């Protein structure tokens, strides 16, 4: 049986590129991908740490976190450490599965993109 990812017809519209269409667009955005990759490797991090690790601005990070929280990929816990406010962030189980699924989809898609590009004269 021919694989779905191989060339299967004469129109040439099934070269494994369909994998790319299945990519989770919420994760595919570079800044959000950075946030998720950092959170994927740790158990818990606060807002300040995430700013340093991703080098995003406060506003940018906040807006991306809001989107990730709305999708239930990230859990946000606001609290205090002494008198200072602290926002703790953690990847949810759903977020962890979404990152893993994104990684395998992208790896598959990139594998299917092998080959030399045509060179212009």
């Amino acid at each position, binding site marked *: 049986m021919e694989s779905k990812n191989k060339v299967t017809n004469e129109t040439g519209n099934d070269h494994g590129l369909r994998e790319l269409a299945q990519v989770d667009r919420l994760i595919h955005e570079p800044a959000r991908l950075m946030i998720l990759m950092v959170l994927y*490797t*740790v158990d818990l991090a606060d807002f*300040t740490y995430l700013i340093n690790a991703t080098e995003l601005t406060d506003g940018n990070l906040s807006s991306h976190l809001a989107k990730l929280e709305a999708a239930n990929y990230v859990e946000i816990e606001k609290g205090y450490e002494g008198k200072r406010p602290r926002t703790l962030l953690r990847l949810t189980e759903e977020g962890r599965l979404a990152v893993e699924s994104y990684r395998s989809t992208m790896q598959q898609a990139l594998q299917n993109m092998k080959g030399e590009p045509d060179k212009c004269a």
Partner: protein
Amino acid sequence: MSQIYDLSQVKRRNLQLIAFEDGLFDLLLGSVYMALAIYPVTRELLGPILNLVLYLGWLALLVVGQLLIRYFVSKPRIGYVRLRNTLAMRLLFIITIVMVLVTFGLVLVTLLSPGLGSASDVTFAPNPDRSYLVELITLLVLGAFFSFLGYMFGVRRLYFYGWMVGLAYLFSVYMEHNAGWIFFFPQAIAAGVILVIGFVLLLRFLQNYPLHGE
């Protein structure tokens, strides 16, 4: 940007941020080695027991000072992170603890070992036939230990530290036995280099990581 797709790079970056970005590790290391360079001189002045007490006190002060600076200065700037408790992390933690204990043991052995004798010892004579096997082993152990740490944490300067300190120790002992040097001058230079790097890193850290309000 490309490194964000590599999870192992992200993990290494986490470790670098927590442990090496503020230069405190370098300052602690440089201070310990500087103390070891000076110990033969203070032993002449204080005697072995008082010297040992002084150095253990100094070591404790350095460790406590580093922890306090890390808590009050570095943590508010870097932020809080709790790493995942994976098997690799546990293994790395155990290996690091064992290596630190071995280093601490070596420091104790060095401090307790008998010296050449008094600085005013008129019977001093060069000993070109002395074997330097112990110092060569120390060089290899330090080189391998710091290279391992450098590789695991992705901190390249640690390779340099290990071999530099090992070679400086070998050269110091050689000069002690062949020229009668009491002060471990090469080791002090190596420690000084590490301290300067640590200070530069700390200044750069304070500049690059301002205090953050949420």
